[in-house]
Every structure is written in structure tokens, then in C-alpha cells.
């Protein structure tokens, strides 16, 4: 597939503050990319630079083989949905959607047909004459989406489009937007701070922190192969340890020696392991077994999250583990129960601090 959008070495300063630091990435045609990160990481600034609503201090943006770096927003090709939706309150649903169609020398029938088509696409055909104050949050969101898509833009930009909605509506719309995007094949960039949203919707995630891209890759890669402590910690839940190298595939955490599958080179390391990769030792023959005491059990439905105080050799350290609820309940494991856990060697990963 073609590179549809390429962003090269973008820097953005607000006074002394650097909001974007040498940001570069590409988006393929038809791809759904999520820019994910905590608030203040620069993700919204990046989206606004792509839209031309902010001008970058340095760097280039190329869209569809055309340099758009210096073009004002109205000469770029994109549709945008804001967190606030920004629906025009005094215009009906129909007039909101047709707002961008009017000056393109289209006759009334063509416009009406396009509006009907879009309303059907977002499932709001019955609401054509309503005003935004008369719609629910989810419906407003869909009108905003239809308005952005009306002129068939080459690029769709979504700025935290779901964060103002209830949890249930959010889950539903998540799927709907994803399906719509796939159906239309429109290249899409979405900004969000919600990792679950990014994991479920994106073809590819660009994870940002402090104005820098920390890591980019498919949702699976980001989860299972975090490159930095920040990535590991921001996506999902994880345990992080300081460790020392002993040999190529063994290391020491708080005095205890553990086996791992990595090719260790540095002397001082940061190690991560996901809670679900820590197992309760049943046979005593598993690798990397440590003893510990249950301090707290959180019931999460099918899983139970255990906060365990683990007796490493030199000091006790808290570790988070996920267990199947069934196992914990059947074996009558409670607070202050002693357990033996195994930190599986293949799950111990070296990340950049």
C-alpha cells in the first residue's frame, strides 16, 4: 500500500515549551492510526498541526504526494470531528451535514441525496430535521462524523471523539466508527488518551509521551513487546523492576537470581512482566519460583487481581498478578495466604528505562 500521509521531523514550540520533539511517522492509505498518550503529551497539538490549525515550528507534512506543510486548513484535504462535536446549534441535522457541500456547485438534489446517504450510513435518518440540543450525545457524535465525511475527504481526523460519552455508548460507537472506517476505506487518524479505545480500534498505534513518539506498532506488538518502561506501563498493567545482569540470560532482582530468554547486554536493566504472565506454582518445578503473601485481592469478574508481597532475597517487593477467579475461589486463597509464584522466563522483558 501507498504512504498516504508522511510527517517528518516536526518540532513545535510554545514559547520555551517544546510540545512536539522531532516527530516523524507515516500513514498508509486506508489505515486507521491512533495517536495515544497521557494528557499534555502533545497528541492533540500533533493532530492540529496535521490539520493546519497550528503551524509547526519546523518539519514537513506530505499528504497524497503533495507538500502541505505551509497550507492553511481550508486548502488541505481533511474532515475533522472535535471532542465537543462543534455542531452548529442553530442549524438542523440536515443543514449541519450539508454545510460543507453547498459551495461545491452541486445542485439541490445531489446535496439532498448525499445527506440522506450519510444519515443512513450513521443510522440517523429519522432525525434529519432535529437540532443538536434535541439529540443524545451519541447521536450528536454521529452527526459530527457525517458532517466531516460529507465532502468525502481523503483524511479523517478524530480528536478524542468518544471521551464525552457514557461508557456503554462509547463501547458501541467504538465498533461502529471502526466498521464505518473499514467500509469507506478512509484514512483516519484518531487522538485518544484511552488505551482501550486505541487497542480495539487502531490498525496501528503511535504512543506519545512528552512530545516524543515512544513507540509505534500494531496493538498486539505494543502490548506484548513494549520497548520502554513508559510503553509497558501506559498500555495495560505491568510490573517494573530494576535488575542487574548476571549472564546473557540470567539476571538479579533484589538479590534473587532469575532466568530469562533475552540476550542481556547492559549491566543495569529495567525489567517488565505482565500480571497475567505470573503464575501460581502448582508443581514446584516451574522456573523462577518465589514465595510471597497475598496482601489484597481485587475481584474483576472472570479474573482476580492479587497484590502480593514477594520475598525477594534482599527485600520484600509488591507484585501484581492476575489469576483466574475460579482457581482462587476453589483453593480458598485469601488475604495473608502464602503462595508460591513463578515469573515465567519468556515473559521477563528488558525495556528502556
Amino acid at each position, binding site marked *: 500500500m501507498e504512504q498516504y500521509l508522511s510527517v517528518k521531523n516536526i518540532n513545535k514550540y510554545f514559547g520555551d515549551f517544546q510540545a512536539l520533539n522531532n516527530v516523524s511517522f507515516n500513514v498508509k492509505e486506508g489505515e486507521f492510526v491512533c495517536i495515544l498518550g497521557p494528557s499534555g503529551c502533545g497528541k492533540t497539538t500533533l493532530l492540529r498541526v496535521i490539520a493546519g490549525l497550528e503551524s509547526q515550528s519546523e518539519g514537513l507534512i506530505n499528504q497524497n504526494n503533495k507538500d502541505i506543510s505551509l497550507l*492553511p486548513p481550508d486548502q488541505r484535504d481533511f474532515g475533522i470531528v472535535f471532542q465537543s462535536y*462543534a455542531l452548529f446549534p442553530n442549524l438542523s441535522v440536515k443543514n449541519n451535514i450539508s454545510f460543507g457541500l453547498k*459551495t461545491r456547485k452541486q445542485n439541490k438534489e445531489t446535496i439532498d441525496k448525499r445527506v440522506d446517504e450519510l444519515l443512513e450510513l450513521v443510522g440517523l435518518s429519522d432525525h434529519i430535521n432535529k437540532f443538536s440540543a434535541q439529540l443524545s450525545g451519541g447521536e450528536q457524535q454521529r452527526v459530527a462524523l457525517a458532517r466531516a465525511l460529507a465532502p468525502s475527504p481523503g483524511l479523517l481526523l478524530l480528536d478524542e471523539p468518544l471521551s464525552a460519552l457514557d461508557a456503554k455508548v462509547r463501547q458501541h460507537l467504538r465498533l461502529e466508527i471502526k466498521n464505518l472506517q473499514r467500509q469507506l476505506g478512509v484514512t483516519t487518524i484518531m487522538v485518544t488518551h484511552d488505551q482501550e479505545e486505541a487497542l480495539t480500534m487502531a490498525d496501528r498505534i503511535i504512543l506519545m509521551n512528552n512530545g516524543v513518539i515512544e513507540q509505534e506498532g500494531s496493538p498486539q506488538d505494543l502490548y506484548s513487546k513494549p520497548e520502554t518502561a513508559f510503553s509497558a506501563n501506559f498500555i495495560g498493567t505491568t510490573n517494573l523492576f530494576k535488575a542487574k545482569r548476571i549472564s546473557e540470560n540470567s539476571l538479579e532482582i533484589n538479590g534473587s537470581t532469575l532466568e530469562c530468554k533475552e540476550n542481556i547486554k547492559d549491566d543495569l536493566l529495567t525489567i517488565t512482566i505482565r500480571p497475567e504472565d505470573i503464575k501460581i506454582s502448582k508443581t514446584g518445578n516451574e522456573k523462577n519460583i518465589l514465595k510471597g503473601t497475598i496482601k489484597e485481592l481485587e475481584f474483576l469478574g472472570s479474573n482476580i487481581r492479587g497484590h502480593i508481597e514477594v520475598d525477594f532475597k534482599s527485600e520484600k517487593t509488591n507484585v501484581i498478578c492476575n489469576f483466574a477467579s475460579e482457581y482462587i475461589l476453589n483453593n480458598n486463597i485469601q488475604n495473608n495466604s502464602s503462595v508460591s509464584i513463578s515469573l515465567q522466563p519468556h515473559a521477563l522483558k528488558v525495556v528502556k528505562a
Partner: protein
Amino acid sequence: MKKSRDDYLTIFFISIIGIYILIALAFPMYAILSKSVENKDGVFIGFENYQSYFSNPALVYSIYNSLFISIITMVITISLAFVFAYALTKSCMVGKGIFRSIAMIPILVPSLLSGISLIYLFGKQGIFRDLMMGYDIYGPIGIIIAEVFYTFPHALLIIITALSIGDARLYEAAKVLRSKSIRTFFTVTLPSAKYGVISAAFVVFTLVITDFGIPKVIGGQFNVLAVDVYKQVIGQQNFEMGAVVSVVLIFPALLAFVVDRIVQRKQVAILTSRSVVHEPNKNKKFDLIMLIYCSVISVFILTIIGMCLYASLVTFWPYNLSLSLDNYQFDLMDGGGWDSYYNSIRLGCYTAFFGTIVVFTGAYFVEKSRSVKTGRSILHLLSMMPMAIPGMVLGLAYIFFFNHPDNPLNFLYGTMAILVICTITHFYTVSHLTALTSLKQIDNEFEHVSSSLKQPFYKTFFRVTVPISLPAIFEIGIYFFVNAMTTVSAVVFLYSSKTNLASVAVLNMDDAGDIAPAAAMGMMIFYTNAAVRIVYVLVTKKILVKFQKWRTKTV
């Protein structure tokens, strides 16, 4: 970034409005400053005029007088208005709407009308002259009473706003913590209203020190700065000394303006926090006291305006008390006749129409356009300046600038156009702030959405921004109209025989001793403004609701 067509249009419009304000404000102000350091032949003489001003004890004494009445009026008005506002916001007394309407009456009349009314009440032939116990109403006493009447609604509006932002959650917390109501007043009510009260105090101070009508009518031998400007220019034709007094008058007004802006900024910080509106609880004793208090104030206001109404209808005070419309036969008297009234209506309409367009468009660019950052800041700064310029000073500055023989805009002098320009400029800032407040409530992303949809900004402006802002636009129009009807200070230097105005006619008839017709003309202004206000309320209630269905949640 490259400039789009929208950017060029924005630069074009900002420049036009900027040039307008330069011509209507900055150049005239420069003219008056330079005039104050010139002699009669236009030769630069440094601070000689100032030296002769400060060596004239009679003139310098006016500074003390002006400060004296301004500070006393400020203290009295703020105290009275605070309790009144407290009653309207924090009590459950009956008739709040009526009290509020009555309190707004002084805004609808020229300030000097209250002076005329006091002459009828406490003057040498006044109804209650015995209450004066030998003191003379002509002088500081009369000025202060009249100024309190005139400034009361201005202070009240600001303090009501300040008191109504008090957060209900704080009151609930105080209650749950069993705080006594007096303690709640000092720990919750007063701190949140503090900035509003300070701001109101400075507004009152500025209004009084720059007011010219009241001291002119009822000041007697008590000289103040604003009247000195008038006397120097109109009485003695000493324009240079008029300019000097004007510059002296700018200083306190400018100081008050700067302090007010600083305080207002802090007030906004309180406003933007998410507060819940506080609903007062019933308290029979407190509500009754407040009811009595508001009634007393309302009777005072109604007496002043009622006295004028009565005086305008009495055939020949105090000898023939039968009622007639003789005093409304303006064409039989000096002062401009009915034509001056019609001129005022024209001025009001033109000012409202053009003023609203200029102010709202200017505020739109300041608040909403993406590009031309510096231009927008300069425009905003220019828009804020008129508030610091007293009307007398602005009017005199217009003489110097527009009447200069070398000025290509000289043809405007003596026309209705210059009155319109002057009045728009005089009342620019408050309207600008009203427009800004309204525009700030509109989502900033609207402009971004339309540019992403490749629509020019003016389409969004006409189809979305203007319809949403209609209530504020009407509010600005009414404000311009009412003030154009009542203003005296700036236009008194600029009217010609063809463009005499009703408010100026009140002044001139009073000057000529035709006090009853002056009262009658003042009442004509009142009737007109009251009618416009009432029509406005009906329009917003009925017609706006019809055209603004989208504001309602139901289908």
C-alpha cells in the same frame, strides 16, 4: 504558513476597523494633547498652559471639588447599591422584579434630569425646601444626591452579578459546618463579591468625576473639572485651557480604568469555575427588613422621576398648578424645539445600527479569527481605550481634530455623522465587552470545522455566529440607542444648529431658565427609552423564541 483567502479578508476587515478607531479616537486624542502645549496661534510653548492652570487657585480648587464629590458619591452609592443587590439576590422578599426595574430607571434619563428634579424638590421654590434647614441644594449636597441617583443602577448591575456568582456549594458547606449567618456573610458572600464591589466603586468614581450635566445644572458656585472644560471652551473660547483641564481630567479616569481592568480579570477567574447557583432561603424577619429597605430606595427614585413628570405638566410653577401640556410646546422656546427631539431619535437609531455592526464585527475578529495575532491584540487594546476617555474630553478632542482646516475629514464637522461617530466611540468599550462575552460562549471549533469543510469564515459568521449571538446583538443596539438619547458630555461640543439634540436642549433650556420645558424634554427622552426597553423585552420574549427554536430541548 501561507495565507488563505480568509486570512486576507481578516486582515482587510481588522485594518478597516483599526483605521476607524484610529480616526475616531487616537488621532483626536493626539490633537487634544498637542493643543494643550500650544498657544492661541498654534505655536508649541511646552508646559506654559499647565503652569498658568496650576497657578490659578480657582481652577485648581476644582480638582479637590471633583475628587470630593466623586469619593463621597462612591461611598454612598456603593453602600446603598450593595444592600439593594443583596436583597435582590439573597432574600426571598416579594417584588424583586419590580424593584429591579425601578432601580434601572436612572439609566433611561440624562443625568442632569435628576438635578432639575432636585431643584423642584428642594430649591428655593421647592416642595420640600424646609427640609434643607437653611442649606442650599445648589452645591455639593445637590450634586451628590443627584449623582447617587444617576450612578445607582450602574453600581447595582455590577454588584448583582458579583453576588449571584456566589457558589451554592460553599453556602451548603457553611451550613453543614454550622456557621452563623453573619460569619457566612464575611467568609463566603463578601470574598466572592469583593472584586465586583471594587469594580463598581471605580465605575461610580469615573462616572461622577467625568459627569458634566449634574454639576452644570445644580452645582451653583461649586466648580468641578468637567464643568471647567465646558466654561473654558464655550464660555471663554479658551480652547488651550480647555485642553489642559481635559488632560487633568483624564488622569483620575485613566487610573480608575486601569484598576478596574485588573480587578475585572480576577473576577473572571472566579466566574469560570464551575459553580452552582445559590437559592436563598426564606427568613421572615430578614425578608421584611429588605422589603422595607428596597421600598425606601424605590420611593426615592420614583420621587425624583415623578417630580420631573409633575413639573413638566404643571402650567406655571409654583403659581399656576393646573396641569397642561404647555411645557411640551418646544417649538415656542429656544433650545432647538421638537427638531432636537427628532434629531436625538435619528442619532439613537444610526448609533445603534452602525455601532452594533462595527462593535460586533470588531469583537468577532478579536475573539474568533485564527490569524493576524498582533493585529487582533492591537484592535482589542484600541477597543478598550474609549472607556478611559471622559465624554467631555472626547468631544473637545473632536473639535480640535475634525475642525482643523487641513483635515480632509473637515467636511464631517457640524453634521449628524460626526455625532454618530463620536457617540459610537464614547460607548464603544462596554459594547465591545458585551460582544466578547457572548462570543466567548460559542465553541471556538466552529471556525475550524468550517475551514475543514472549505467554507469561508463569513458564511459561518452569518449562518451560525450572528444567529446565536442575536440576544447580545440586540442588547448592544439598545445600549447604544439609550445612551445616544441621554448623552450630553461629548456631543455638547459638536452639535450644530441643524443637529441640535434633545439632551443638549434640556441643558440649554435649563441654562436659559426654562426649567419646566427642560424637565419636559428630559421626560420625552425617558418615555422614548422606556418604550424602547419595553418593546425590546417583548421582542426577546416573543419573537426570539419563535426564531430560536433550536434553543429548546423538545422537538
